[in-house]
């Protein structure tokens, strides 16, 4: 049974989060995610940017219904536009229907490829698992499909027989990507997919994700703490701070004309490769109520 809504699926965005709030069951008065709303279009990348503890990973997990037991979604809707079944609210749907969507229509890439792959199964098996579960592909057809997927992410198909420990960090992350795109999901959630990787490998992975997104017309929810990565991959940007969205807009709006002092502070502390900008620690002065500045004059002062 799915909980359908009356929203017209032709005009609705791929994913719409409406006034999402998450608390820890033990401390229900503190909102870990506080009234968060944004939407993702098909074929576009929305970056959620914030420091650790800002609630960006919790937001992503709640889309998949993967919040851990001590946490609870207290309010809000997760509206997923599943073209065939109309718009469904993932926060109300039962476990069985959610399982059918997970992996098939919404897939996720986790932060640490070292810990999120099963060490005792070959990577080929792990990539094939969701294909068998969701699409019923078996035998020779499955092998061909796995080989094609590995090829797509730039790993020699012969490595299907390898175990995760025989691959480098970058290769493991590519395996994670191959797993996630196996069933051609409509929405891909990437939770800091490059944070554990070297810059050269990071650049390759970002390029790969971007080209896959375009080719498969996926919507992508990309979580990161690095504005450098945002500049490379985002179409839209959502900035989170302590569970709240402080700013949202297109990449150009947020990067070139940041309105909120936190966005500016976060942008200012990204080291630049040219060394023109002095190194700056993140500035929380704006949190202090005494320090209220007019955003307009503040912008002028910065320019």
């Amino acid at each position: 049974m799915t909980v359908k809504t009356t929203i017209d699926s032709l005009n609705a965005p791929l994913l719409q989060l409406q006034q999402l709030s998450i608390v820890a069951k033990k401390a229900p008065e503190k909102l870990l995610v506080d009234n968060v709303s944004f939407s993702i279009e098909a074929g576009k990348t929305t970056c959620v940017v914030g420091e650790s503890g800002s609630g960006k990973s919790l937001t992503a997990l709640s889309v998949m219904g993967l919040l851990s037991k001590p946490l609870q979604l207290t309010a809000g809707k997760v509206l997923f536009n599943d073209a065939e079944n109309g718009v469904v609210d993932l926060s109300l749907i039962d476990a069985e229907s959610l399982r059918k969507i997970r992996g098939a229509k919404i897939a996720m890439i986790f932060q640490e490829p070292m810990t999120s792959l099963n060490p005792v199964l070959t990577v080929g098996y792990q990539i094939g698992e969701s294909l068998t579960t969701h699409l019923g592909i078996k035998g020779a057809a499955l092998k061909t499909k796995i080989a094609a997927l590995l090829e797509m992410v730039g790993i020699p198909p012969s490595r299907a027989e390898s175990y995760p420990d025989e691959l480098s960090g970058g290769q493991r992350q590519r395996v994670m990507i191959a797993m996630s795109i196996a069933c051609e999901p409509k929405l891909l959630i990437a939770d800091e997919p490059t944070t554990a990787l070297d810059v050269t490998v990071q650049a390759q992975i970002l390029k790969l994700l971007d080209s896959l997104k375009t080719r498969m017309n996926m919507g992508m929810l990309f979580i990161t703490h690095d504005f450098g990565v945002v500049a490379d991959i985002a179409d839209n940007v959502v900035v989170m701070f302590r569970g709240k969205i402080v700013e949202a807009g297109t990449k150009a709006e947020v990067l070139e004309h940041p309105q909120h002092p936190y966005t500016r502070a976060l942008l200012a502390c990204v080291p630049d490769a040219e060394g023109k900008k002095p190194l700056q620690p993140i500035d929380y002065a704006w949190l202090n109520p005494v320090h209220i500045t007019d955003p307009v004059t503040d912008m002028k002062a910065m320019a």
Partner: protein
Amino acid sequence: MSADILVANHLVKTYTQRSGKFGFGTSLVKALDDVSISLRSGSTLAVVGESGSGKSTLARCLLQLQPLDSGEVLFAGQDLAKMRGAELRAVRKDLQMVFQDPFASLNPRMHVGQIIGEGLLIHAMGSPAEQQKKVIAMMRRVGLTEADMQKYPHEFSGGQRQRIGIARALVLQPKVVVCDEPVSALDVSIQAQILLLLKDLQQEMALSYIFISHDLRVVRHIADDIVVMYAGKIVERGTVLDIYAQPQHEYTRNLLAAIPGKKQPSLEIA
């Protein structure tokens, strides 16, 4: 031109790797292949390269945390590679290391005061009261409070733990500090704080740094000189300005091109 405080000549380190079915065969991996570096007194030398290029092996071999196959490491007129036991322990007081992973490099069963003070205890530097004083002063300097002494590492965030790691290394007033990717496990917003702290402490305590990193954005702000490593060899060396302006080696150019956000000049206005 200031004098060199640490010079390493022709370092070679080979690892034996299991290979073949069930690991019965062996193959040799050259982690350091005739590597020579020199660190000017009071300056920062960055060692840049991707994982597997041998930069962390270099760091460990310089401090003799791993034995070298051949080569010499000259510090204060002595060859560290020839030292053993007590002699080596004594000289380590002047050579300290800040580790990459602030979650794995602090003993979870010791409280922070013990972790930072352990070096003083080992090297018997001053009476217990003096040691206590030094620990507190160092903790204040890196932005921790006296009350933090009784806490355990798990009670701190990543950035704070890295401050503990820095305090632990610097309380001995070393001359050379090897920083092995000190900020790569931290949020970008916290990286700048730690880098600025390292820079300030370098000025105050006249430290010389060897700074290992794969992130050229970070290196740009802290280093004076750079060596670029690839597959166990140094492929390029020079001052920061030269390397960024005119990278000679193909691999250095690749590294520079991989910097996130580089294609977007818009980032600079912020």
